[in-house]
C-alpha cells in the first residue's frame, strides 16, 4: 500500500482542490502558519473551558482528557451525501428487521442465509428477548454507522454500532466551535446545519414510548455516572434534549412501572435512553453484582411499561461475525442490493479462512469479534515481525475470536500538524435515529489518526476529530 494509492479528499493528483473543498482551500491559503497555530490553541482552550472531556481507562492521573480537535473541516458534497444516506437508511432498516426476525421466527435461519449457530451461540444474542416485540418493532434506535472511503466513489461500511454509539456530542460541539471561530467560512460555504440533532433524538425517543402511555411520554437518559468515559456526552444530550439525566439509584420499579425519585412525588418514566451495557441494566435479570442497574427494569420492559433504547440484545446486529452477512441480511429483508459495500471479511472460525489469514497476516487487519475501541487488534502492514508472530499464536489458540479484513487505504484529509497542513487518515461516523421514521444527521463525526501513517482513529489511541460538512446544492 504505497502513499500514491491513498485518496486525498482535498487535493487531486495534480495538486488542485476537489470541488467540495475549493473555497475552503482558498481560505486556508490566506492563513499563515502562525495564525493557524494560534487558532488551533484557541480551539483547545474553548474545549477545555467547556469541559468537553472523556476519561481514559487505566490511567490514574488526568482521568479527564480532551480529544484533540482539528480545525480543518472535512467536506462532503450534496451528491456524495445523498448516496451515503440512502445506503445508511437501507442498512439500518434491514438490521432492525433482522433483530425482529431472530428474536421471533428466525426466518433468515430457516432460509439458510445465516447459520443458526452464529446466532444461538453468540454471546450477544439475548434469549430473554425471544418473543418480545418492542414498540414499533424498533430495536436499534440510535446507530453510528462507521464508514471509510478509499476512492472518489468508494465507501465501505466498517462497523454498524447498534449498542450505544458515542461521539455525537463531539459532532455538535465541533460545529459550535467552528462557527464561533470561523464565522466567515460559514458565510462562504453552504453547510447543512446539524444543531437539530437533540430535537430529532427526542422525537425519536418519544415516538417509541410504550403503547399504554397516555399523554406526553417522559424520557430520561440513564448514565453510569460522572466517572464514565462518556459522561460529558450523557449530560450534554440530556441538557440539549431537556430531559432528566438519571443514575440507576434515581430510578426504581414499582407495580411493574419505572419511576424517578424526585423532590416531589415519584414520576413515571416511559422511555429510557440507556448508556449502560445490557449486562448492567437489571441485576435481577442479568449480572447480580451490578451496582449500576435498576432491579426489576427488565420485567417492566417485558410488560410493555417502559421502552429501553437501544433494546437489550441489539449487540447481535453489530457483532463482527454477523457483519460478514449484512449484505445478505439487506437483500433478505429489503429485496434490494446493498447500496453501501461491506469490507471483505474472513471469519477465522472457518478453517479455510483461518489458513488464508495466517498466511497473509502482514497484509491484513485482524480484530477481536467482541473488541472495540481499537484495542486488541493487529494491523499487519505496520506491525513488527515479533508482533505478527505473537498474534498468530493467539489466533491459533482461539480462532473463533477473530475476523480479518484487508488493510484499507483509508482516505486522507489535510490536518493541522506541527509542520503545517499534512494529510492524515480519516473515517466517518454518521448518526442515525430510528423511530417512527429514519432520521439521519447530515455528516457525522470524522475521526482522524493524528500520527503520520497511522490508520487507527480511535480517541483512546491518539485519534482526533474534525467538523464534518455536508454542502447543500
Amino acid at each position, binding site marked *: 500500500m504505497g502513499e500514491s494509492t491513498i485518496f486525498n479528499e482535498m487535493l487531486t493528483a495534480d495538486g488542485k482542490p476537489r470541488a467540495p473543498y475549493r473555497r475552503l482551500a482558498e481560505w486556508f491559503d490566506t492563513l499563515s502558519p502562525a495564525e493557524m497555530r494560534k487558532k488551533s490553541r484557541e480551539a483547545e482552550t474553548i474545549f*477545555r*473551558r*467547556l*469541559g468537553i472531556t472523556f476519561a481514559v481507562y487505566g490511567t490514574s492521573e488526568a482521568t479527564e482528557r480532551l480529544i484533540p480537535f482539528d480545525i480543518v473541516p472535512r467536506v462532503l458534497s450534496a451528491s456524495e451525501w445523498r448516496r451515503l444516506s440512502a445506503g445508511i437508511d437501507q442498512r439500518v432498516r434491514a438490521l432492525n428487521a433482522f433483530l425482529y426476525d431472530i428474536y421471533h421466527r428466525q426466518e433468515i435461519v430457516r432460509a439458510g442465509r445465516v447459520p443458526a449457530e452464529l446466532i444461538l451461540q453468540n454471546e450477544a444474542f439475548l434469549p430473554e428477548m425471544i418473543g418480545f416485540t418492542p414498540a414499533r418493532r424498533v430495536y436499534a434506535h440510535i446507530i453510528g454507522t462507521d464508514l471509510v472511503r478509499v476512492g472518489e466513489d468508494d465507501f465501505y461500511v466498517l462497523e454498524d454500532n447498534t449498542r450505544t454509539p458515542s461521539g455525537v456530542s463531539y459532532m455538535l460541539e465541533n460545529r459550535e466551535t467552528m462557527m464561533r471561530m470561523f464565522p466567515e467560512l460559514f458565510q462562504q460555504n453552504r453547510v447543512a446545519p446539524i444543531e437539530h440533532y437533540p430535537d430529532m433524538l427526542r422525537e425519536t425517543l418519544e415516538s417509541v414510548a410504550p403503547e399504554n402511555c397516555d399523554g406526553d411520554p417522559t424520557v430520561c437518559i440513564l448514565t453510569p*455516572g*460522572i466517572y464514565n468515559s462518556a*459522561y*460529558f456526552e450523557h*449530560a*450534554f444530550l*440530556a*441538557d440539549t434534549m431537556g*430531559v*432528566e*439525566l*438519571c*443514575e440507576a*439509584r*434515581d430510578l426504581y420499579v414499582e407495580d411493574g412501572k419505572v419511576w*424517578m*425519585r*424526585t*423532590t*416531589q412525588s415519584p414520576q413515571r418514566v416511559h422511555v429510557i435512553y440507556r448508556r449502560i451495557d445490557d449486562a448492567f441494566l437489571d441485576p435481577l435479570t442479568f449480572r447480580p453484582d451490578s451496582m449500576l442497574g435498576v432491579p426489576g427494569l427488565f420485567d417492566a420492559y417485558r410488560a410493555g411499561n417502559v421502552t429501553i433504547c437501544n433494546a437489550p440484545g441489539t449487540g447481535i446486529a453489530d457483532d463482527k461475525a454477523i457483519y460478514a452477512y449484512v449484505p445478505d441480511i439487506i437483500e433478505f429483508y429489503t429485496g434490494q442490493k446493498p447500496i453501501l459495500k461491506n469490507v471483505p471479511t474472513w471469519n477465522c472460525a472457518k478453517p479455510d479462512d483461518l489458513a488464508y489469514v495466517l498466511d497473509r497476516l502482514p497484509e491484513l487487519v485482524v480484530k477481536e469479534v467482541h473488541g472495540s475501541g481499537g484495542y486488541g487488534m493487529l494491523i499487519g502492514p505496520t506491525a513488527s515481525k515479533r508482533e505478527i508472530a505473537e498474534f498468530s499464536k493467539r489466533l491459533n489458540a482461539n480462532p473463533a475470536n477473530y475476523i480479518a479484513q484487508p488493510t484499507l487505504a483509508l482516505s486522507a484529509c489535510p490536518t493541522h500538524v506541527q509542520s503545517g497542513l499534512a494529510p492524515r487518515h480519516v473515517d466517518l461516523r454518521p448518526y442515525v435515529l430510528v423511530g417512527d421514521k429514519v432520521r439521519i444527521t447530515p455528516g457525522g463525526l470524522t475521526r482522524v489518526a493524528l500520527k503520520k501513517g497511522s490508520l487507527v482513529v480511535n480517541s483512546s489511541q491518539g485519534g482526533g476529530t474534525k467538523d464534518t460538512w455536508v454542502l447543500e446544492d
Partner: protein
Amino acid sequence: MLGRTAASLFWTSRYNERAENMARLLEVGYRIAMTPRLGQDAADDWRSTLVSAGCDQAFFKKHDELTKRSVVAHMLFDPDNPSSVRSCIEAARNNARSVRTAITGEMWESLNTTYIDFMEVRPQHMTDDKLPGFLTWIKQRSMLFRGAMLGTLMRDEGYHFSQFGCFIERADNTSRILDVKYWILLPDNEVVGGELDRYQWSTILRSVSAHRSYRHAYRDAQIRPFNIAEFLILRKEMPRSLAYCYDWISESMDSLTARYGEQPMSYDMAKRTYQLLDGTTMQQVFQSGLHEFLGDMIARNNGLGAQLAADYHFA
C-alpha cells in the same frame, strides 16, 4: 426534579460559598500576621482562624505547630481537609458535573475554569507576595459563579435549592466568626475596650467584608461591639448577616412551597428562625446570652440543612 439533582445544586452552591469564606478568613489571618503584635501570641490568632473555619481538629491531626505556612497550606491546598479551598472547589465542581443538565453553561464554565486554574497552582510556589492576589482571585471566582447563577439560572425549583445551600453556609460562617470571639463583643467590654479589642473588632468586620459598610450603617467614628453584633446578626441590609440570610431563605421557601403546593417540616423550621431574627432586639440577644444565641443559630442551621435533605429526597 430528581432529588439527587436538588442535592447537587444545594451542595454546589454551598461549597462555592465556603471556598469564598475560607479565602476571606485567611485574608484576615494574614493581615493579623502583618500587624505589630499587641502582646499576643501569633499562634493564638492562627488558632482562632482555624476555629472560625471549623478546621482546627483536622489541622491538629496532621500538624503539631501553628505557623502561617502550615495554616495556609491546610486551608488552601490540603485535599485531606474537607473544607480547604481546594476541596471546596473540587466538591463544587463534582456536584455541578453530576447536574450539568440543571445548571447553565455559564455556571459550569465559571466553576470548571476555577478548578482548572486552581489545580495548576503549586502550593510550594504560593509565596507571601503572591498570597493576597491569590486570595482575591478565589473570592472573585466564587462571586463570578454566583453572578453567573443569578444572571442565567431559571427561577425554578433548582434555583431555590441553590439559594438554600448558599445562605445556610453563609449563616453558618457568620455565626462561627462571631462565636469564636463572642466575649470581646459583650457590652460590658465596651467600657474597658483597649487597643487590642478595637483591633479585634475590626478584624471581625473584615472577615465578612463589612469594615467599610459598618461605617456607613452606623455613622460613628467608634467601632462598638454592640453595633458589630447587631450589624452581623440582625441588620437586614448587611448581606452576610443572619437576618439577611434567613430573609433570603424564607423567600425561597415561600416560592418553592408555593410551586410544590406543600409545606413540609423544613418550611416551618426556616420560618421559625426567620421570625426569631425578625422579632428580636440586641438587648434580648445579650440578655439570653450571646454565646448561647449563636450556638442555637448554628444548631438551627444544621437542622434546616438536614430537614431539607429529608423533605426533598436528597439521598
